């Protein structure tokens, strides 16, 4: 691998908290690396452990659960 490693990160974000925080980060133009992809859920309680395991199975390099 000659290129710099660019990890694939899944982020499960609660609609009311972390997802709105991500929106605020956007509105405020706070910059962060583009590796993470948000999957919106209505509550972090929705995140079944299996989602996390499956994400790794499918090749994720990291999983963030943000409530």
């Amino acid at each position: 691998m000659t290129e710099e490693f660019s990890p694939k990160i899944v982020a499960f974000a609660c609609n009311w908290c972390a997802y709105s925080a991500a929106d605020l980060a956007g509105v405020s133009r706070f910059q962060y690396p583009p590796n993470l992809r948000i999957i919106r859920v209505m509550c972090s309680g929705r995140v079944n452990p299996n989602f996390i395991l499956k994400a790794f199975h499918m090749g994720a390099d990291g999983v963030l659960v943000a409530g």
Partner: protein
Amino acid sequence: MFHMTQELIKILGIDPARVRLEWISSAEGTRFAEVAREFTEKVKSLGPSTLKQAA
């Protein structure tokens, strides 16, 4: 439950540092960006997931 997931991952040979649980309130835009940055760096430093290569 998150704890359980972390333990499982550890046994599966995946570094538990690859999973992270964070409470970020809706007013904490900076913290979201900070967590995103930190976590990306962390995962970068861990290198590609071994699981991926085996698969």
